C-alpha cells in the first residue's frame, strides 16, 4: 500500500510538470537559474574562505575540519527545528489526511508516507546549501568525485536522523497534549529556537576566524580544534567519516558510515513503531478546534475613532485576526532577532574613520531599505491574498478596493515605519553620523519605507492569490518576485539620486568652495520626486484596477 501512496506522489509530480504552460516553464527556468546562481555564489564564497583557512600554518587543515564539524552541527540543529514545524503541518494538518484516514490504509503506512514527506521538505534546502561547501572543500583539498558521492550517500541517513528527531518530538508532544493548542505552542517554541540559533551564530562573531589577529587566538586553542565537536551526535559521525575518507582511512570511514546508517535505521524504525501506538490519538486531538472563549463585547470599535469609514472597520478586523495567528508571532520573534543582529553588525564595523562612518550611514539607506522590502514581502505584499477564501465577504459588501487597499497600507505603515526608524536612527547613532548624513539617510529611509508599503499593497492587489493556503506560496510567487525586484530597483534608484547631495556634502567637508551646485540640486530633487512618485502611484493604480476587475470564481 505504501508503494501505491508513493506512486500517487510520483504521478502528481509528473502531471504537474506535464501541465506546465509555456509561461510556467519560463518562470520556473528563471527561478531555477537564479537558484543555481545563488549556489554558485555560495560556492565562490566558501572557496575563498576555505582556501584562506587552508593557508594558515600548522592548523590550516584542523581549521577546515573544525569548521566542517561546526557546519554539520548547525545543519543538524536547523533540520531538527525545521522538522518540528514541517512535521506538525504535514503529519497532522495536511489537506489529504481526511481522505487518507477514511480509506483502508493502515495508520503506520500513512505515517511513513507523511513522515517521509516531512523529512524531505524539512531537510532538502538545508542539505542543498552544503553542496557548494563540499565542492569547495574538494577543490581546496584536491579530493575527487568519489568524495562527493560518499558525501551524498552519507547525507541521506544524516538528514533522515536529524529530521526524524523533530518528527519524534512532535509525535510525542501531540500524544501527550492532543490539542490544536499544542500546534501553537510548538510554532512559538520553534520560532524562538530559530531566533536564538540565528542570534547565537551572529553573536559568536564568526568573522574573527578569518582575521589574522584573531587566528593567533585560535592557535592558542589548538587542543580545542583537535577535540571532537559533540562526539555523540551524528554531525560528528558524518564529519569523521568524511575526514577518514579524505585521508584514506577507509576502515574508519566504513565504521562511521555504518554507525550513521544503523542509527538512522534503528531510530526511524523505532519512530514508526512508536507512531503506530501514538499517532492516531495525536491526530484526532489535533483536529479539535481551540476552544478559547472570548467575551462578547458590542461597543464602538477603537479604530473607528481615528480611521473613518470602512478603513476603520477593516483595520479592526485585521488587527484582531493578526494577533491571534500564532504564525505571525513567530515572525515577530524572528524580526526582533534580525533587528538585534543588524544593529550588532553595524556596531562591529570599523568606525575609526569619520568618512567611512558617513558613507556607511548613507549606504545604510540601501541595506535597511532591503530589510524593509524583505519584511514587506512577508507582511505587506501577502496581506490582500491572505483574505483568502473569505474574500467573498468583502467582494459582496459595499466597500471599494480602494478602501481595502488603504486599510492594508495603514496597517503596514505603522510597524514598518517604526522598524525603519529603529534601524536608521540606531545605525546613525552607533556610527556617530553627522547631522546632514543622519537626516538625509533617516528621512529618505522613511520615504522609502512608505513607498515600499505602497508598492507591497499595490503589487499584492495586482497579483492576488486568494486560494492558496500557505503564505510561502504567496511570497515565492511571480508577484512576490516582481515586487521584490521592483523594490530593489527603486532602492537602487534612490541611492543613485541621493548620492549627488552626499557627494556635495563630502566636497564641502573637504573644503571645496561652492560645493553645493544649485542646478544639480534641482535636478536631483526633480529626479527624486519622479522616482518616488512612480513608486507610490504606478503599482498602486495598477493594483487597484486589477482588484476592481478581479472575479471571484
Amino acid at each position, binding site marked *: 500500500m505504501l508503494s501505491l501512496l508513493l506512486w500517487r506522489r510520483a504521478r502528481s509530480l509528473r502531471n504537474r510538470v506535464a501541465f506546465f504552460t509555456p509561461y510556467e516553464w519560463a518562470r520556473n527556468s528563471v527561478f531555477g537559474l537564479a537558484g543555481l546562481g545563488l549556489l554558485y555564489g555560495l560556492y565562490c564564497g566558501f572557496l575563498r574562505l576555505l582556501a584562506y583557512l587552508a593557508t594558515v600554518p600548522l592548523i590550516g587543515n584542523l581549521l577546515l575540519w573544525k569548521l566542517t564539524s561546526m557546519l554539520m552541527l548547525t545543519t543538524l540543529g536547523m533540520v531538527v527545528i525545521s522538522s518540528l514545524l514541517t512535521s506538525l503541518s504535514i503529519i497532522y494538518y495536511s489537506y489529504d489526511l481526511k481522505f487518507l484516514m477514511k480509506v483502508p490504509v493502515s495508520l503506520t503506512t500513512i505515517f511513513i508516507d507523511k513522515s517521509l514527506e516531512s523529512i524531505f521538505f524539512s531537510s532538502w534546502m538545508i542539505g542543498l546549501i552544503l553542496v557548494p561547501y563540499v565542492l569547495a572543500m574538494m577543490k581546496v583539498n584536491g579530493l575527487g568525485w568519489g568524495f562527493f558521492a560518499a558525501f551524498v550517500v552519507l547525507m541521506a541517513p544524516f538528514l533522515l536522523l536529524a529530521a526524524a528527531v523533530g518528527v519524534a518530538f512532535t509525535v510525542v508532544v501531540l500524544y501527550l497534549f492532543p490539542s490544536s493548542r499544542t500546534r501553537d505552542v510548538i510554532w512559538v517554541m520553534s520560532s524562538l529556537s530559530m531566533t536564538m540559533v540565528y542570534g547565537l551564530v551572529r553573536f559568536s562573531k564568526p568573522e574573527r576566524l578569518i582575521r589574522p589577529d584573531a587566528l593567533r587566538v585560535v592557535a592558542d586553542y589548538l587542543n580545542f580544534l583537535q577535540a571532537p565537536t559533540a562526539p555523540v551526535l551524528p554531525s560528528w559521525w558524518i564529519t569523521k567519516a568524511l575526514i577518514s575518507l579524505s585521508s584514506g582511512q577507509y576502515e574508519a570511514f566504513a565504521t562511521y558510515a555504518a554507525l550513521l546508517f544503523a542509527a538512522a535505521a534503528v531510530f526511524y524504525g523505532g519512530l514508526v513503531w512508536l507512531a503506530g501506538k501514538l499517532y492516531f490519538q495525536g491526530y484526532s486531538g489535533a483536529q479539535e478546534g481551540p476552544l478559547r472563549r*472570548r467575551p462578547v463585547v458590542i461597543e464602538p470599535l477603537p479604530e473607528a475613532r481615528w480611521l473613518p469609514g470602512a478603513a476603520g472597520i477593516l483595520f479592526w478586523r485585521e488587527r484582531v485576526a493578526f494577533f491571534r495567528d500564532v504564525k505571525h508571532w513567530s515572525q515577530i520573534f524572528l524580526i526582533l532577532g534580525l533587528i538585534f543582529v543588524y544593529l550588532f553588525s553595524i556596531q562591529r564595523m570599523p568606525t575609526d574613520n569619520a568618512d567611512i562612518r558617513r558613507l556607511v550611514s548613507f549606504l545604510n539607506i540601501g541595506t535597511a531599505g532591503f530589510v524593509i522590502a524583505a519584511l514587506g514581502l512577508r507582511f505587506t505584499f501577502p496581506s490582500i491574498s491572505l483574505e483568502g477564501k473569505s474574500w*467573498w465577504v468583502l467582494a459582496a459588501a459595499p466597500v471599494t478596493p480602494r478602501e481595502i487597499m488603504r486599510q492594508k497600507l495603514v496597517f503596514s505603515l505603522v510597524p514598518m515605519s517604526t522598524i525603519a526608524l529603529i534601524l536608521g536612527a540606531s545605525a546613525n547613532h552607533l556610527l556617530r553620523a553627522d547631522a546632514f548624513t543622519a537626516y538625509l539617510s533617516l528621512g529618505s529611509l522613511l520615504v522609502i519605507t512608505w513607498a515600499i508599503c505602497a508598492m507591497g499593497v499595490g503589487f499584492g492587489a495586482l497579483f492576488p492569490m486568494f486560494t492558496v493556503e500557505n503564505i510561502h506560496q504567496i511570497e515565492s510567487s511571480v508577484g512576490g518576485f516582481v515586487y521584490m525586484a521592483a523594490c530593489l530597483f527603486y532602492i537602487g534608484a534612490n541611492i543613485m539620486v541621493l548620492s549627488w547631495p552626499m557627494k556635495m556634502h563630502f566636497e564641502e567637508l573637504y573644503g571645496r568652495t561652492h560645493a553645493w551646485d544649485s542646478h544639480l540640486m534641482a535636478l536631483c530633487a526633480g529626479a527624486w520626486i519622479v522616482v518616488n512618485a512612480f513608486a507610490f502611484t504606478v503599482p498602486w493604480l495598477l493594483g487597484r484596477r486589477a482588484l476592481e476587475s478581479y472575479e471571484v470564481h
Partner: protein
Amino acid sequence: MIEITGLVKKFGELSAVKGLDLSVGPGEIFGFLGPNGAGKTTTVKLITGLLKPTAGTIKVCGFDIAKQTLEAKRVMGLVPDEPFVYPKLTGAEYLRFIGELYGVPLAHQKKRIPELLEMFELSGWSGELVESYSHGMRQKLVLGGILLHEPKVLVLDEPMVGLDPKSARMAKEILTTLAARGTCIFMCTHVLEIAEKLCGRIGIMIKGEMIALGTLEELRGKARGGSDLEDIFLSLTGGQEYSALLKHL
C-alpha cells in the same frame, strides 16, 4: 427588485450564461434549479457583483450592479455555497464586522446580535473562533449576518447544505417571513422539495440557458405531467438516462 437583461458570461470559449432575461419582484421567492455545471452559481456571482458580465445588465432595486456597485451591494445580501468566514474572528465578532460594514447602527447591533446568536443556537459558541465551527455552524453564522443588515434582496446559493433539520426548518420559515415582509429572494438549490414548498416561481437552467420558467403548475404543463418537482425536473433536464446504467449495479 432584480432585473436581468440579456445576461451573458463567457470564460474563454465556454459560455456559462447565454442571454439570460429574468425579473424577480419584491416579496417573491424565486427558485433557480439546474444540474451541476448549468451556470447557476455563475449567475449568483454575476448578480452579487463577484463576477463581471460579458454582456447584459443586472439591476438590483434599480441600481445597475456594474455602474452603481456600492448602492446595489448595500441593499443585497449573499449566502454563498461555501461559507468561508474569517477563521480568527469569533462568531460574535463576525456579526459585529458585518454590522459595521453594512452601516447597522450600534444600538441595533447590541440588540440584534445576541438575538440572532440565540436564534441560531450559537450563543454558547459566540466567543469561540470561527475556525472551530462546523460547516453548518458557519452557514448559520452567515445567515445571521444577512439577517443583521436586513437586505431588500437576498441571494442564496444552496443555503440549506450543512444545516441540521431544525435549523433547515427555521431557515425556511425565515425565508417565508422575509418574503412576506417584501424581501426579494433569489435561491439556487438542488433540494427540489425546498424549491417546491417555498418558491413561487422556478427557473430551470441547463448549459447556461433558461429552459423553463414559471410556477410549479406552469412547469408541470410544460413537462406534460409529473406529480412532483423531481419528476418535472428530470423530465425537462433529460435526467432519466441513468436508468440503463443502474442495471449494471
